[in-house]
């Protein structure tokens, strides 16, 4: 392969473009000044304020709860969908699973808003957000699981049946262990997507419930303090470790997107 040296400059520029803004956010979370314009001094004040911010803590609790539950349910349903898409030709299944992933989030958010209030007469809250998150996470898990199945030798599953395993035994002893990396990666991705989601949550959360991203949005619009930087940095750390973890568990799964 020829190593075109001229590719390095624009590539490094792009990497810089990606990381410098984030570095600035992290940096200024330690800045001893209200205005995030100049560096004044190092402080952990903003983190302390964060720890005392009741609204923020409540939002964090909600985010965590929703993310864990959504990831769990979406992983189960998404794995089933991925297996079904790979093995059977069910008309419309792929469309229903993949469209929530492909469409702009605002459409899903808005249609669920109308559905919950108009049809179900439901007060918006944790449940509505949870349902919304599960809906778009299913697609991600299904994509990853299906990709993994597509890369495997089909005759392995037939061999299991041939050697005496019932369909359930074949699934439990052969299929499941082999797709487990993809399922885990899907679960981690769902968790990350749920914790980070803004648009859909914005429309389905209603008045009483807040999540971290919603809280951050309010802070950005209403009163910008470096507390935002602090919570951003913390959130970054959490999702960063999850992504690194996911990449260890199933390195091909993340590349399979798009």
């Amino acid at each position: 392969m020829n190593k075109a040296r001229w590719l390095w400059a624009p590539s490094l520029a792009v990497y810089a473009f990606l990381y410098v803004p984030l570095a600035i956010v992290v940096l200024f979370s330690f800045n001893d000044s209200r205005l995030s314009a100049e560096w004044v001094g190092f402080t952990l004040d903003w983190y302390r304020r964060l720890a005392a911010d009741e609204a923020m803590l409540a939002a964090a609790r909600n985010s965590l709860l929703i993310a864990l539950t959504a990831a769990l349910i979406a992983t189960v349903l998404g794995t089933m969908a991925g297996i079904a898409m790979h093995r059977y030709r069910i008309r419309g299944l792929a469309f229903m699973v993949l469209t929530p992933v492909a469409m702009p989030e605002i459409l899903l958010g808005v249609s669920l808003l109308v559905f919950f209030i108009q049809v179900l007469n439901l007060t918006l809250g944790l449940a509505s957000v949870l349902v919304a998150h599960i809906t778009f996470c299913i697609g991600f898990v299904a994509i990853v699981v299906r990709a993994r199945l597509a890369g495997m030798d089909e005759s392995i599953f037939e061999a299991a049946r041939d050697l005496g395993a019932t369909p359930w035994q074949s699934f439990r002893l052969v299929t499941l262990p082999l797709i487990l990396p993809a399922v885990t990666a899907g679960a981690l991705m769902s968790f990350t997507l749920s914790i980070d989601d803004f648009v859909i949550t914005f429309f389905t959360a209603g008045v009483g419930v807040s999540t971290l991203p919603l809280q951050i949005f309010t802070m950005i619009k209403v009163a910008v303090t470096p507390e935002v930087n602090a919570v951003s940095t913390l959130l970054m750390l959490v999702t960063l470790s999850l992504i690194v973890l996911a990449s260890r568990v199933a390195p091909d799964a993340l590349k399979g997107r798009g």
Partner: protein
Amino acid sequence: MAVPRAERLTKWLIAGPPLAFLLAFFLLPSLIMALASLRYPGEFGGLAPLAARAGEESGLTLENYALFFGDWVYAQIFAKSLGIAALTTLACLVMAYPLAMLIARSPKRRRDFMVLLVILPFASNFLVRVYAWMIILGPMDLLFTRFAVIVGMVYVHLPFMILPLYTNLEKHDPDLLDAARDLGASAWHSFWRITFPLSLPGIFSGAALVFIPVLGMFAIPELLGGKDDWMVGNMIKEAFLGTRDWPFGSMLSLMLTLAVLAIAGAAALYARRGSLR
């Protein structure tokens, strides 16, 4: 398999639950919203009742669509959104291509690491990524401008262009370029006549992954842009949460959906043609 009835049962046991969930919480809401676009707005917002009642606006109507096609303003905002999406896609393509090429040509271990480096900024919350640019552009007096909106859009969606492009480029046979050079092509020619055409499916994947989400965005224009930079997403948000004119918002959502389907359909058609080659 040998016993069709048992196999059919298994099929529905596996596909049933996710299908049921998505039918209930994706398909049904979408259809309801499509229906809502044909209704009158309720007195205090929301939707007016379906059954026709005397003295009140109720039942079905096409007035929302009439409003959209009648007033130039809405078409303008739609066109503006398409323009912003196109510009963002182009900018992403130009920035992503060199990096994608570099990743595709790197040895395997370094490649995985470089891909990870592209994905990691994803770890930051979407709002954080926007906020970062508020910090940077504010002092430069570039905040609340169209430029800021584009920068924000590009920043958030760049990885979506890099990954499909790199996936495609990685599969190119290195012998092809050697063959081209052997037959007398310059570096530029081998890129333009061989690498670029072969990468078109990747470009289209990436373009679809950027264009479609950008089209529906509202947070970035709201945080980084000015009044002039409103996109379809902002209009939809305003309709549902501001003026509470749900039918109008539903109509706008439907128009957005149609636009997205058209683009996705075109991309899929091209992808199929490309794979036949």
